[in-house]
Every structure is written in structure tokens, then in C-alpha cells.
């Protein structure tokens, strides 16, 4: 029987101190299929995959490949046996070229000591051609967008001879077109006999791509189903243990005076290219303004300028409650009451090697006290950290644990909680629900609406169009550094906003509306 499975994990158990991350997990994966692994944040998905690739050693349990029990000692042996993984947080070397990244550790040699550039390159090009990837081999990693990095990671795994390819939340960093590209690649890989293990929080995607779905909850397998046996709702309630309706409930309330006013803002990026072009808009107290746009349209530079991480061009005006803040540092802006949830949670949101409590007050230690004049007030810090952990359901063991040991989604919850629980007047939020499970998305959305109702001005910059449309009182669309009006809540349809995001004109969109009306 067992030889129809390419991979079997039997009775896997893994604990971190007192926390049981994986508890008697059984997973059977058929060759040439896409096997999805879903579950809440901290359910143990990444841990299980790290056991499979032998980055972690299980406390007990067995891994069988092609009907034979394996006995790996190092990640290298697992990789040699054909298990490749694209990690949730990419494993790349920023200052090396794509080519160097791919071959590192698995170089073809000639003369025993030299890298055989020709052979390596031919092998990579062969893979790219066979599976239809298009990546620039001689660019440095830091120059490339995330969608490209993901392709690099996949090619890297294939180069190492992966037969089973694990993709840990591959779509959370991608735009819709990037996701389509990825799915095309996945189908291609599966058709040519590879096996994919696919981790995601987005149930729609799981239904679209998976042949089998295994649901984890609190470190245990709660179900293994085929997509035709269940629907999205059923799956969500299996995952969360209750009914989930992903629908923001907006409250009607009057807006106050503008908290943020932006006039003629232009921003250049690091290379000196103008990425934000003469943009003007305002966010009023109690208003949620959403910025929709294809990734790389200038959102990053816009937000960096608003938060003081990048100097705007001369002639630009940023006003907070009527006062110009062009030259204010991020620390000063925080003191004024501006909160910020950055997109890159590990790079800019937290210090991974610091403890959870340190990260909970990071950035606010000057702004809002926590100190009895010169010293930190540990009782208050502990209390505040516990508030974040409780309200935002951060799964953790102790407040003194390093943030790096949290699961991806739990790091995100910590950052969001830190910013939301401060008494800010303006919140700048980038991708608030990236990598977060459906149950928690529902909660974060309701929090955002609640904050707005209490008079906080909110600017959401998200790559999830649905999120922007569900939450925003007013939608702004950014395309190629220019902002156009996307209407009030529910004024335009998703398709119309989508058109604006690709550079269509409002007149075209309105034309559409009129055509439909006729």
C-alpha cells in the first residue's frame, strides 16, 4: 500500500520547552500531487516542514520516502534525497547574484577546486527552460522584487534536485498576477512529476490548486480532505473551530478635521528615480483611507516619506494636524501620535533577536512613557505586553522569549498589536493581515474599524485589493507614482478599481459605469 505515497510522516512530535508544536502528526503525500497544509498561526505548519527538511530534529516519529524509512542527520542529506523548501522568510544572500545564490553549496566543479561556471549555468538554464522560469541570473538579489525572489528560490530547490517541493506561504508576498504565475509554475511542476506541499492561509487559493488538504490545529491533524468533499466555510471552521464570515462590518460615523494632509508630495527612491509624483490627499480623523495599487507603484516610497524614513523632494508638504512635519524624524512623529505597521515585519517591524517585551515597547519607549523618568518600568511593560498578547492572540510561551521563535503570523500580530494599542491619532498600516489566519483577519479588521470609530485617522496601504475595498471609507489608487481617486466605500466595483490600478483613467471607468447603466 505504502509505496503509492512518495512521502509519509508518521507520529511526528516536536516540543519547544513546554510547548507542543507538533503532536503525533501523520501526513501522507501522493507523488505528482499538490498537498495543501493549512491551519491557524502557530498551528505548527512551518515546524512540521522544518522537521521534514531536517532543520529541526523531531522528538519522535519517522519519515518515510518512497516507502523506505529515512535516517537523515543533516539538512544536506534531506536536500540530497530530493526534499526542497522555499521558506516563509526567504533564504537568500542579498549581495550575491542570482546565479551565485542558486549554486552555493551545490557547485559543479572542474579541476577539483574551481567552479565550473559553464556547467552550472547550463544546468540552471536547462531548469529555467524546462519549467518556464525567467530570472536574470546576473542581477544581485537585493535589486529584485519579491515575486522574482520566489522564482529564484524555486529554481534553487530544483537545481538541488528537489522531487518534493515545499512552499511555505508562497502567495503572501505576491500580487494577483504573481500568484497566477506561481500557480502556472506549480501546475507545470506537478505535470512533470514533482510533488508540491503548499502552505497558505488563503482558502480560495487552496481550493484552486490543491489535490488534498490537511488541516492542522494546535499541533494536531484535525482532518485530511479532498477539495470536492468540503467548501470554504467548512474548511474555515475546521481550522478555527468556529464559523468565520470574512466580511468587515463598517460603522457609520462623522469624520473630524484632517489629521494628515499631503500636498504636492514627490519622493525619489534610493537610485534617485522619482517614484511618487506630486501627490495630494488627506486623511481625516475617524476616516479610513485605503491605497490600492500593484506592488511597486510607489507605495513603499510614499509610506516611507510619510513616516520620515525618506526625505521628500523640495516643494512637498506633509501636514499633521495642520503642522508641517517634513523634517520630523520617525521618533518625533511617534511622539506626535503617528503609528506605523511596516510591510517588512522581520526587517523593519521587529528586532528578531530581542525579546517579546522589548519588541512590544519598541519605538514607544520615548513616545508614551513606560519609563519612570530614567528607568524602564517593568511592571507596566509586562502589563502592556500581556495586553497585546491577550487581545491579539499572540501564541507565545514567555514574554522574555526571542521574537524570532514566534511563527510568522504571530510576529505580525505582535507588530499590529503594538501599534494599535497606543493612543495614536494617525495610523499608517501596510499589509496588516499578511500571513495571518482567517480568524485573526476578522479580528484585525474589526479592530481597525473600531479604532476609526474612536476618531483615529487610518491610512491602509495593502496589496490585498479586497482588504482595501472592505475597509476603506475612501479609496485612492496609486499607479506609477500618481494617485487617482477610487471613490467612496463601495462606489466602484472591484473590476473598476482593478482597471485604475493598471493605469486606466477614471473617465474610462465612469464610461463603463454609464455603459452598464444604459
Amino acid at each position, binding site marked *: 500500500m505504502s509505496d503509492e505515497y512518495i512521502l509519509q510522516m508518521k507520529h511526528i512530535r516536536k516540543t519547544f520547552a513546554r510547548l507542543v508544536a507538533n503532536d503525533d502528526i501523520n501526513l501522507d503525500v501522493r507523488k505528482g500531487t499538490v498537498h495543501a497544509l493549512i491551519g491557524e498561526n502557530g498551528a505548527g505548519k512551518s515546524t512540521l516542514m522544518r522537521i521534514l527538511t531536517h532543520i529541526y530534529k523531531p522528538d519522535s516519529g519517522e519519515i518515510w520516502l518512497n516507502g523506505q524509512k529515512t535516517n537523515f542527520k543533516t539538512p544536506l542529506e534531506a536536500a540530497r534525497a530530493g526534499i526542497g523548501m522555499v521558506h516563509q522568510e526567504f533564504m537568500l544572500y542579498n*549581495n550575491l547574484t542570482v546565479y551565485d545564490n542558486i549554486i552555493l*553549496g551545490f557547485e559543479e566543479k572542474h579541476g577539483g577546486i574551481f567552479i565550473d561556471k559553464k556547467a552550472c549555468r547550463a544546468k540552471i538554464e536547462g531548469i529555467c527552460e524546462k519549467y518556464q522560469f525567467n530570472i536574470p541570473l546576473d542581477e544581485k538579489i537585493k535589486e529584485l522584487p519579491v515575486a522574482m525572489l520566489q522564482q529564484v528560490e524555486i529554481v534553487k530547490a530544483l537545481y538541488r534536485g528537489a522531487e518534493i517541493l515545499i512552499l511555505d506561504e508562497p502567495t503572501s508576498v505576491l500580487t494577483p498576477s504573481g500568484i497566477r504565475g506561481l500557480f502556472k509554475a506549480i501546475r507545470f511542476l506537478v505535470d512533470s512529476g514533482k510533488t508540491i506541499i503548499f502552505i497558505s492561509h488563503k482558502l480560495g487559493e487552496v481550493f484552486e490548486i490543491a489535490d488534498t488538504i490537511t488541516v492542522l490545529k494546535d499541533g494536531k491533524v484535525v482532518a485530511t480532505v479532498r477539495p470536492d468533499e468540503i467548501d470554504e466555510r467548512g474548511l474555515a471552521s475546521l481550522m478555527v473551530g468556529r464559523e468565520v464570515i470574512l466580511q468587515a462590518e463598517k460603522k457609520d460615523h462623522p469624520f473630524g478635521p484632517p489629521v494628515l494632509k499631503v500636498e504636492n508630495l514627490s519622493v525619489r527612491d534610493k537610485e534617485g528615480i522619482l517614484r511618487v509624483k506630486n501627490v495630494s490627499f488627506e486623511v481625516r480623523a475617524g476616516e479610513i483611507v485605503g491605497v490600492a495599487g500593484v506592488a511597486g507603484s510607489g507605495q513603499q516610497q510614499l509610506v516611507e516619506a510619510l513616516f*520620515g524614513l525618506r526625505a521628500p523632494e523640495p516643494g512637498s508638504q506633509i501636514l499633521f494636524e495642520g503642522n508641517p512635519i517634513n523634517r520630523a524624524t520617525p521618533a518625533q512623529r511617534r511622539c506626535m501620535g503617528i503609528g506605523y505597521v*511596516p510591510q*517588512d515585519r522581520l526587517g523593519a517591524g521587529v528586532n528578531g533577536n530581542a525579546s517579546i517585551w522589548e519588541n512590544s515597547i519598541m519605538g514607544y519607549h520615548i513616545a508614551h512613557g513606560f519609563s519612570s523618568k530614567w528607568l524602564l518600568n517593568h511592571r507596566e511593560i509586562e502589563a502592556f505586553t500581556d495586553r497585546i498578547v491577550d487581545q491579539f492572540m499572540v501564541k507565545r510561551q514567555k514574554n522574555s522569549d526571542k521574537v524570532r521563535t514566534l511563527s510568522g503570523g504571530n510576529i505580525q500580530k505582535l507588530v499590529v498589536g503594538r501599534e494599535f494599542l497606543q493612543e495614536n491619532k494617525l495610523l499608517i498600516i501596510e499589509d496588516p493581515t499578511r500571513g495571518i489566519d482567517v480568524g485573526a483577519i476578522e479580528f484585525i479588521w474589526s479592530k481597525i474599524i473600531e479604532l476609526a470609530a474612536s476618531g483615529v485617522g487610518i491610512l491602509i496601504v495593502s496589496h490585498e485589493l479586497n482588504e482595501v475595498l472592505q475597509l476603506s471609507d475612501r479609496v485612492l489608487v496609486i499607479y506609477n507614482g500618481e494617485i487617482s481617486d477610487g471613490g467612496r466605500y463601495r462606489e466602484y466595483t472591484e473590476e473598476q478599481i482593478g482597471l485604475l490600478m493598471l493605469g486606466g483613467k477614471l473617465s474610462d471607468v465612469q464610461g463603463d459605469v454609464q455603459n452598464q447603466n444604459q
Partner: protein
Amino acid sequence: MGWEILKMTVYASTLGITFRSAVPLLYGSLGGCFNQTSGCNNIAYECVMLFGALFGVIGSFYTGNPWIGALCAMGIGILVALIFGMFTIVFHSNSIVVGVALNSGAWAMTTLLMVSLFGSRGSFTDPGIISFSRLNTSLIDKIPYLGSVLGQNVLPVYLAYAMIAVSYIVMFKTPFGLRIRGVGQNEVAAETAGISAVKYRMISLVMMGAFVGLSGCCLSLGGLSMFSENMTAGRGFLCVASMIVGGGNPIKIALVALLFAYSDAMSQILTTLGLNGLLVSTIPYIAVIVVLLISGIKSFKGTADLEG
């Protein structure tokens, strides 16, 4: 006077001194750049170099063979480097603290050894210390100007320049160099590729020890045949500075080292003009500051930068 000084900048003797005094810096910085690139924050160059200088003298004095002296220097260099590695890589002590401790301890240790072995304080010279012998470079010597810059040197001088090319090839053309660069940039990623960061850091640390030790013995056996208290006088730190400014590229590192050597040569030549010796001897150190400043300006942007 101004014209005199200007002419001196291209004197054959200025360049000749540069050519020779760059040698310890080249061995030190090229030998150490792999360790630096692999992500070890190693500043113990002063220490290893000083031990290398002393043990070169010891080896040569007791055997009469400068090459055995060189082997002794490399051996002690490796030993000291391994002590550094034991603390920082195995026990995870702070590498700056360990580096400072080794550097300041080395002065006292080498002086103590000199006094107890040779019974002399300050410095130790003896006809029994045999230096490397000059090569017969009659072919080079015949070339006008260049001959007096490059000719008449000991073998380790020429080997140091060959090492520039060799280091470049090792760094950029071999799996070893690639892996060293990878380990330095993303240790976890390297581990997932089956590359042990500890192993590569240790190997490169041994290289650092050997070559920095050798660089020390070039000071003591390169011409003068002597050991004196703290004779490295900051050259170890010049190696560290060259590596940092050169950013892991052996060719750039060598250029920076040559620049430091050149300013050193200029200061030596300028003293012969009767300029204030103490003032002039600050030139190499001012050069370091200027180079660091210029290389720092490139990455200075005015505002904080997430991408950087």
C-alpha cells in the same frame, strides 16, 4: 620646498619603500579577508602579527634559517587565531572584547618572552638572527626607474604581490570563496544548503592566523633582523582598515593597503627633509581616516534607509 616635496611623491625611493612596506599589510589583509567576509568580527590582527614577528625571530635565531622562522611565525599565528576562535565561535564570547584583550595582552606577552628568552629589553638584535636573503633580480634591475622600485627584494615580497591574484581567484572563482561569502551574508541560508558556518569560519580563521603571522615575520626578518617591543605599531589595525574599506574584494583591499604603505613611505621620506618627525609620522593614520571618511560618504544618505 613645495617643489621638492612634490618631486618626492614620485621618487623611486618613495615607491621602493612603498613596495616593501606594503608587504606586511598585504599578507595580513589578504590572508584575513576570508575570515572577515565569513562574518567573524576579528580585530586581533595586532596580536597575531606581533606574535608572528617574535616567533619569526625565535625560529631564525635558533635554527639559522629564516624560512623555519617563517614557519614558526605561521604556527604561532594559527595557535593565537584558534584561541580567538575557541572563545568567539565555540563559546560565543563577544569578538570585540576578545580581540581587544588579545591585542593588549600581546604587547606584554611578547615583551615578557623576549626578556626571558634573550634577556634584553626594548629590542633584540643579534647576528644570529638570519633574515631572508635578497633575490638576484638582475633582469628587473636593468629596467630604468622600475628596476630601483621593484628590484633587490626578498622572496616573500614578491610572493605577497602574487597573493593578490591568488586571493582574488579563491574568493571569486572557487566554491570555497563563494561559500565564505554566503556564510557571511546569511548564516541560516548557508546552513540549509548544508554548509556549516562554524567549519568555514574556522578554516578561514586558520588562514588568517597563518598569513598574519607571516606578515609579522616579514617585519622582523624582512631586512632589519630584529624584534622590538610593540614593533607592529598599529599595522594590524591598518590591515583591518584595508579589509573593511576593500569590502571583501582582494584587489580593492590590496589597493587600500598600498595606499597606506605609500603614505607611510611619504612620511619616512619627508622626515629626511627635516620636517617634524612626530608630525610627519601621523600621515599614515590621517590617510586611514581620510579613506574611511571617503568610503563612508558613499553610503551616507541623510535619512534613515530601509533598503540599505
